């Protein structure tokens, strides 16, 4: 790890100011950033911890019934506090990493990093969530721009994420055996106005919506509706843990299981 300055502001405004510094880097739970620093793969001049900002923590229900989760809220907190209002999302949070990871890692950190195999991007995109920053509101459909890339500007902070609560939802995660990230994860949410299917782990472009499946399920919400639908393996990730074809196949299996879990 290279030397860096460390700041821990207590307000969003102070954090935004601190992040204006040259080569300043926001620190959420550090579950990706700290290992990266230890490997000397990044050299920020200062780390700005977002963990001291009370207004960025916690889970609450908005007037319209949606769930607002502070950007610095840990996975363990979401797993616990969202369980009543949005059990599928709570279950997703409860499957991330191990207890140590869940007690450090934050939803804002995960979404901002947009790891192509992370769970939260699927949850946010599948739910049609709104990512709220210090500057604006971004719909999940506009937020994820490809592997490790988002719509966030330099120094922009995810202060909270607002999740509309669907009628039913399920996250089906097939584990990569080593990292236990998603080899393929499918988040399916059924709203009054339609079904959303978001896939993580599978694509070289990061999390994506499987629109053909959504269309088929909007016509008929049962597993068999997916029969004959196939994901094109061309853009899938192929690596040590699974070929492109295998991942494409798993997208179908996990989507079917998500549907079956919702009916």
């Amino acid at each position, binding site marked *: *790890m290279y*030397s860096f300055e460390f700041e821990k502001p207590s307000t969003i405004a102070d954090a935004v100011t601190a992040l204006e510094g040259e080569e300043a880097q926001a620190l959420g739970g550090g579950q990706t950033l700290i290992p990266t620093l230890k*490997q*000397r793969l990044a050299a920020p001049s200062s780390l700005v911890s977002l963990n001291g900002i009370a207004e960025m923590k916690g889970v609450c229900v908005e007037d319209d019934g949606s769930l607002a989760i502070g950007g610095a809220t840990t996975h363990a907190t979401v797993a616990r506090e969202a369980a009543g209002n949005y059990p599928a999302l709570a279950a997703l949070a409860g499957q991330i990493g191990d207890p140590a990871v869940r007690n450090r890692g934050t939803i804002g950190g995960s979404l901002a990093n947009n790891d192509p195999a992370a769970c939260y991007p699927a949850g946010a995109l599948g739910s049609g969530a709104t990512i709220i920053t210090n500057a604006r509101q971004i719909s999940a459909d506009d937020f994820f721009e490809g592997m490790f890339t988002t719509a966030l500007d330099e120094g922009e902070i995810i202060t909270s994420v607002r999740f509309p609560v669907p009628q039913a939802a399920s996250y089906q995660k*097939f584990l990569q*055996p*080593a*990292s236990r*990230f998603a*080899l393929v994860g499918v988040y399916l949410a059924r709203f009054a106005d339609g079904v959303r299917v978001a896939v993580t782990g599978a694509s070289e472009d990061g999390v994506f919506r499987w629109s053909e499946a959504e269309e088929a399920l909007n016509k008929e919400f049962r597993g068999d509706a997916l029969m004959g639908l196939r994901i094109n393996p061309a853009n899938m990730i192929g690596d*040590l*843990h*699974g*070929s492109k074809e*295998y991942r494409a*196949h*798993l997208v179908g*299996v996990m989507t079917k299981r998500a549907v079956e879990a919702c009916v």
Partner: protein
Amino acid sequence: MPKDSGIGASSKRREDVRFLTGAGNYTDDINARGQAYVHFLRSDIAHGRIKNVDTSAAEGMPGVVRIFTGKDFEGVGGIPCGWEVTDRHGAPMQEPAHPILAQGKVRHVGDPIAAVVADSLEQARDAAEAIDLDIEELPAVLDMKAAAQDGATLVHDDLKNNICYDWHLGEADNDKVDEVFANAAHVTTLDLVNNRLVANPMEPRVAVAEYNRGTEEYTLYTTSQNPHVIRLLMCAFVLGLPEHKVRVVAPDVGGGFGTKIFHYAEEAFCTFAAKACNRPIKWTASRSEAFMSDAQGRDHVSTIELALDADNNFVGLRTNTYANLGAYLSTFSSSVPTWLHGTLMAGNYKTPVIQVNVKAMFTNTVPVDAYRGAGRPEATFQIERVIDKAARELGVDPIALRRQNFITEFPYDTPVALTYDTGNYHGTMDKLEAAADLAGFAARRAESEAKGKLRGLGVNCYIEACGIAPSNIVGMLGARAGLYDAATVRVNATGSISVMVGAHSHGQGHETAFPQVVADMIGIDESMVEIVHGDTSKIPFGMGTYGSRSLAVCGSAMVKATEKVIEKAKRIAAHLLEASEADIELKDGQFSIAGTDKSVAWGDVTLTAYVPHNYPLEVEPGLEETAFYDPANFTFPAGAYACEVEVDPETGKVSIEKFTAADDFGNIVNPMIVDGQVHGGIGQGIGQALLENCAYDENGQLLSASYMDYAMPRADDVPFYAVDHSSQTPCTHNPLGVKGCGEAGAIGSPPAVVNAVLDALNSGGKAVDHIDMPVSPSRVWTAMNG
């Protein structure tokens, strides 16, 4: 009725109190006053010619003490290989130099190029980044069969090719073997890979070295399974130091699994640099360094053929194996594919004609050496996989086929150089069939099928040669060391006992089990006996712990030394009791005159030995004895394992539902510790079978270089195990009748898992002959849909 103390009792592991409460003392816990830190700059390419290593910019950086490169070690010895294998033509193996820091070329990702010593580790890392490397990248040699071809790129330019040796064991006459196969009623052939593994002990390697300018003595603290072996190799072959000036300490060690047997460049470097810098030097491997510098395991590519007659008797077995040694010869690497692998190719079966052919290859990968089982898992996997395939092809019951071909008479001379002293393979299989409830399998399969899962049963046998090893035999086979062990039993004045042993405990529970033996022999409480291990300044010259040898070899030395102590104590007791020595009996810590109620307690005798006022003049004072023990033969633990899996046909995911082990370890000192050893071994075997895969890309980059990509088995990957050790044929040639249990689980379990997966797929109508390990979901799905 289980015993509550002594031999046969499940005494609780006394060492666990300190391990579980954070009171252990590991090498990284040791800090010497004024120590400097070393960071090794390692190659990030697999193969390249070193044009220049420019350290000038780095030399003056803050905190830098000194920077070493390969040039500093010209004239210093390299890492030696401890076993010279003779090839099929009678020539010695090709033995390339293995320098402390790379000279001329880098030969694998992780090969150390320079070592930066600095006041802090961060300063050392900063300076290492300022070293300017000019290295011409060369094509990486990776595929073993391609590497064996004429004209292949050479890993070592001074060798004639990349073949360390082309070795043979068993039937030498190729025509005769061909004839056996030509005349066979059935031949089963299988191409398979024994996947490369990274040992991954929880504690990475660490070394702390000190040099005392006043006494000219060195102390090296290091993560080793065998401190005396390290001292001997480092002093005699690398640094040219007198052994009496060097103390090697291996304190608490957090797992070894073989990879901490070997003498490594980093520990020799720290010892060398401690004098050169006149500072204590500390090195702690990061996990990333462990992945690219700890000797790795397995990595064999084999074609195995089994010939059967019309009655399904095995009539011939032949293997052609390529064994990957990596870029350099690690300490015992040459012995693994040969004497620890070829000699086990008879398995538990009376196959009359066996031919083993092994080409050991240099490649641009991390060196490969012994990993839990070392050669024996590779042999077992081939034998038990090809038998399973033969049973399927012939449509016969795989257990019946094995039983039909079991060796049943002992001693048995195999066609591959071993003499099995004892065993009872039918008896052990009987225990397995009962313990695994094989009769209930059909019902369990039906239950799985009702859930949409395919269920498979895999059964296999194994045998291993343990208690390594008779020095005269291994000497003939090329070992450059004796493989005896030693123990000193020091009885203190008040009767407590310190036993200094050559074996090293790094998870095996010696601190509990060894005292059980001594206490049992004397009839005193186990708490009165303590073992001392891991410090060359305290222990006799023993060879350490590997090859399931500790109790069978070092334990035997301990028994011999204890017998000498008892014999002397009886002479003292006879004097005190005014009786003839021949009439003295020792029971429950009391010396008594046979047939009388006259007795004297152990503690009174020991006190008399050290306060010899009323004492036999012809007997020396004191009560301390040493014994060395060289075994007459290997020991031959054997067993039968059964694994039941469920396969999810949609995803290819394998779940182990039931795993049963029936082992014959001979006599058992502590059944609980033996259970734990078997559990751990099976866990590692399941890891190899389902999860672990050390993979390089076509450029020699390690793809699985961290836990993000290298899948270790976790608690939820393995089932609760059923283990049965009631089949016991005691070893015939050591005093305890013990055989060793440390490696069995890792040897016996991989074929059981793979056999079970294939049984599941075939039961589901998928005619799949083989899937290479790890049998990952992706590979299973591909095999089912290929």
